């Protein structure tokens, strides 16, 4: 397990998906996609599409990983579109500001083993 900084944020696809409907595929696919720096993926041996578990002090989620393009994301950072998964990792305390800490918070990342195919016999 390793500590990363999670950055939830807006994406165009998420915005498009909001208008299509939050229960439809564009929005759901976008909020269930975690971007990781390619160097981090190589170092941890994570393949594109593999599921990782993110734990914060407030919750945990399992999410599939995709590589960020080029140098878009520095190592040590993760990006996910705002939505149900990022909300589960967010705490309720706003420290008197009204705003929960919604970006730039620490998460523990655990690479989950790829499920093996059941024996057909």
């Amino acid at each position, binding site marked *: 397990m390793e500590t990363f*900084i999670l*950055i939830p*944020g*807006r*994406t*165009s696809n998420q*915005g*498009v998906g*909001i*208008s*299509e*409907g*939050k*229960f439809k595929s564009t929005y759901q696919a976008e909020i269930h996609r975690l971007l990781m720096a390619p160097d981090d993926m190589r170092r941890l041996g994570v393949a594109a599409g593999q599921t990782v578990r993110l734990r914060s002090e*407030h*919750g945990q989620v399992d999410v599939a990983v995709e590589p960020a393009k*080029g*140098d*878009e*994301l*520095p190592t040590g*950072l993760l*990006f996910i579109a*705002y*939505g*149900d998964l990022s*909300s*589960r990792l*967010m*705490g*309720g*305390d*706003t*420290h*008197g*500001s*009204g*705003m*929960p*800490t*919604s*970006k*730039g918070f620490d998460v523990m990342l655990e690479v989950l083993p790829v499920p093996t195919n059941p024996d057909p016999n």
Partner: protein
Amino acid sequence: MIQPTSNPPASELQIIEDATCTFCGCVCDDIDLHVQGHQIVKAQRACVLGTSWFLNHEIEDRPACLIEGRPASVEQGIDRAAQILVQARYPLTYGLSDTTTESQRVAVSISDWIGGCVDTTTSVCHGPSGMAFQGAGEVTASLGEVRHRGDMIIFWGSNPAESHPRHFTRYSLMPKGMFLPEGRKNRTCVVVDVRKTKSAKAADIFVQIKPKADFEGLWTLRALAQGLELDPHQVETDTGVPLSVWQDLMDRMKKAKYGVIFFGMGLTMTRGKHANSEALLLLTRDMNRYTRFVCKPNRGHGNVTGADNVVTWRTGYPFAVNLARGFPRFNPGEYTAADVLARGEADAAMIIASDPMANFSQPAREHLKSIPYIALDPKETPTTRHAAVAFCVATYGINVPGTVYRMDDVPIPLRPAFPSPFPSDLEILQGIERRVRSMLQN
């Protein structure tokens, strides 16, 4: 089940010129809509977000009202909604960013009658900036002034290429201005962010700041503006950026004729929150000793700025207002929806044009699910699914007229495309207000 009108309009193409898009705070009012019957088939000049907004808000085959998940008449829904609000001891009205100013006014009135909290999506967007405005003030301008004068455009913690796709082309980077005849060539664009976003790729200068270090970065610039000597090692350790880069940026800022800083959630949602926003506002103010500088928060929703304006007219404060004692009290952290829900304080709620069940923290969402609440939305959302009373309403700017405020506080009229069989937010809220007043009198 609501049916379309018995004599639907003929499906010849109608063109609505200069319609107003309310997906984001850019509020572009130059969209030509091609309308066939109850469907917009093309939105000329709209960005990808605006196109999706216009083309996907058609008349859905759903009941106008659900009570506990079962179809009901709008009148029954209004009655039940008023009951919930009048019987509550600590009701919360929340949302308001995707509805008209006319509806926002009524929502505040209802909150006043029932002695509740009224808060808007500002509190989880630029609420921290709103707090900072009160301490530091905002040196600002209209987007028109930015377009015509701004020769140095800084985006700090904001990614308009994804969140406000026409920001660059309509206002901030590309257009020719009265004092910028060559458009983009007359401008320098700087992006400060923790990751290399699409916006960073459009910039002349990208400053990749260390996460959670925006406060330190802004105060470094404030110190450099005043010519204070800084420890290069300390600056680089604190911000992740060499002092020489900050110094170069400050030198360029001082040479600008008209600098603009747009800022976003990268400041308000991270460590520091209102202290980050305050640092940026103070930096902007400082820069006016040397040249002209303004700043503007990039607002996310079409009428969240309208909500700030309306709640301020009506109560004296922009969000996080409590009316339980018969006069308005303002306290972010005490009366903000995220807190009132996460601490389990609200015993009823009315959620208008927003989706806290998708975006709030888990404790807040669990509590909201446990209390009776009313939801108004043109779309089915996680919030409407768990509402005790859910109204499917007409979409503002597509079906109903009204006024919205662009992110720079300019009021803009809506030009709807086609009528809807669903009631508007305004009609529902006016009905609830009448019923609430009648119940309170009895």
